[in-house]
């Protein structure tokens, strides 16, 4: 149904990171918000994406924010980089969702929900690192990869899932030896993202613990945050709640802090 060859072909057709985007990120890494905003403005699609995203209600700005300099200024270095990383996924987001009943608006809302709560969690565990902050942006790549790989095989997969509660990640792993997160990491490498992001992403799958204590901890928070987001009514209705297997035992030791920070009640 799915072979390694097909997965390689899928990764091959992923476009490389646009030059302007790479240069903007490099300027952010140097700490120059103003130059980064000026550079970003050279790409109209990127400018439009940033304006639309930041003005979503979830970001809570009272008035519309139009200027990129203003946007970058409000967001700060870490958050600006995080949102630029969101844009990477925008490059591979499907025009039409078929496997999941989702729209690009819902997908963007999911990205925003993850970003905002990830930042809260990082503050609670005293982590201030631009790469770690940005790593959350790649998490929903697993959803895009899943949609792209399985949308043409929807009926087959549904039949399989009707007899056994298998999630897409497990199905892909058993069929090809690679899972959605492995594909995500390959995409991150293609976009020349820092290696650490790939490592956190793997750990966030809930089935690949890391030997690095910090990455392991971050992976647990990311795994739980993912399911917090996937438990929203819109994600449940779109079929996203059961696309990946949640591992409650994996996150048991960080649950209390998570629920306090996020305000689960």
């Amino acid at each position, binding site marked *: 149904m799915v072979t390694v060859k097909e997965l390689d072909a899928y990764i091959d057709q992923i476009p490389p990171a646009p030059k302007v985007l790479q240069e903007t990120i490099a300027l952010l890494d140097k700490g120059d918000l103003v130059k980064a905003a000026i550079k970003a403005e050279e790409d109209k699609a990127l400018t439009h994406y940033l304006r639309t995203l930041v003005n979503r209600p979830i970001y809570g700005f009272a008035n519309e924010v139009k200027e990129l300099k203003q946007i970058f200024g409000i967001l700060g270095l870490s958050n600006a980089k995080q949102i630029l990383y969101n844009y990477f996924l925008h490059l591979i987001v499907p025009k039409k969702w078929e496997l999941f009943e989702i729209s690009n608006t819902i997908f963007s809302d999911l990205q925003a929900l993850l970003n905002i709560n990830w930042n809260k969690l990082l503050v609670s565990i005293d982590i201030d690192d631009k790469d770690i902050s940005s790593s959350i942006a790649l998490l929903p790549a697993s959803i895009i990869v899943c949609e792209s790989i399985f949308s043409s095989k929807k009926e087959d997969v549904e*039949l399989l899932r009707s007899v056994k509660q*298998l999630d897409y990640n497990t199905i892909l792993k058993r069929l090809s030896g690679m899972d959605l997160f492995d594909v995500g990491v390959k995409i991150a490498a293609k976009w020349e993202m820092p290696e650490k992001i790939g490592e956190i992403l793997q750990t966030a799958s809930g089935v690949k613990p890391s030997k690095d204590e910090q990455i392991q901890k971050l992976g647990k928070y990311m795994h739980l945050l993912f399911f917090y987001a996937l438990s929203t*009514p819109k994600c449940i209705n779109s079929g996203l709640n059961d696309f990946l297997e949640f591992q409650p035992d994996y996150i048991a030791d960080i*649950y209390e802090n998570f629920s306090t920070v996020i305000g689960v009640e």
Partner: protein
Amino acid sequence: MRAVVKDRIGTFAPQGFIDGENARNLLAPNDITATANLKVDMLLVSLKKVVFFNKNGMSILISLLSECKKNNSSVSLGFCDYDDSKFVTMMKFFEDDHSISLFRTAEVAKLFGQSTKEEKQKNILVYSDDPSQRNALTIELHERGYNPIATLTREEFSSKRQSEETFYEVVNNTHLGLFGKKIGIRVVDNAIIYSLDGFLDAKMNDIFDMTYHHNSLSVGFTLFVFDLNKVIAMNVHGVNFFSRLSSAGAEYGASIAIIGLSFEKTPKAFQEELEDGGVLFFDKLEDLLNNKEIMAELGGNEGSIKQSKRSLTKVIVNELPNFIAATVTTLEMMTNTKAIKESAAVQKIKIENTDKMLASSIGFYGDIDGMMLLIFPVNIAKRACELLLGEVTENTEDLLDTLAEFVNIIAGRLKALLSEKGTSIEITLPRTYEKIDTLITSISEQKGVQINLTFKDERFTFFLTR
């Protein structure tokens, strides 16, 4: 969210967080109705992958589940797969709500299902803080043919549990709500055993699942045993029910046996009347099950299918491409390997090597009727099993379970394909065969379409007959 249905138990498995805001989205009314329509005896929500729930969310789930009782009052509702702390929370929330049951695990829930494989004499360790619950659990398990061992104190339970391996299952942190009264069904070898209690009167027509019975006949079961040990009395409506069942089964060469009926309040003349109609009477279940000669004669032994004299129709042959497409694509999907068609012919079944082969079959009826038989080399079965279980297994029971799932998937796919063309069929329960020699012999005179395929040099046989 779709439920997975197995052994007539439908299970929804939400993940993550459940609260008043999202609970309605987790269980769509359409999904509940669709699951209830599959004639399930029990509808469960598994909490295995749930990290948080609150009372609002759970109350909404219960009210959604309860909707299905409007059409099927005998379905039992509940939650399963939780840890100790979730059980305590659930009990606080719903101690006085008798509409739901709580089962520590899905396996424990299965013990209380209406349809079980024979698990006679299997020891089940039982404990509940609540004496009335302890009694209810013990009685229900006993009624289903298990050997419940109730422990009175927590200390006694903990002590006995240390030798957990001596028990087939441990039932604790489990709470039985109202159980829908249905007829219990067990399968022993190739005999179907229905357990009834109370009074057998006109209500038999309402509580007996005739569709299940027809399915069983269609798939080749020929011995139906009614365990009436707990029946107080039977009136003329009960007699008529058995007479009709016996006549209806005659077309399939099926037999009806009645066990343990007391004649204290039932006229002895009823037995003579039913015996004239071909119904057999035995005092004890063992008298029948242990009598190999009678069991063989009645078709109750494992591994055979009653010979059919019916031949394939043109309509079925016309639909053959659909049968093959459903089988091949499903097998390709589950083994992730390409199939190569070797040969196809209308013939009597011919299997060159019956060693290391397993089989599964499923019947279909409606606009067209017949039976599909799939014969797998053990290696293909293992590969298909690997996808469902995530590991290579040598356990024959797991392999046979997978083959039953597999033939179910194929039949489901076939049903959908035929439905697109306006042909409506229903499918029976699947059957599996660990040894295929007897099976092959039992259908050796029947003609059908045999298609041989190879998957990575392993031969797989598809046989379609009536």
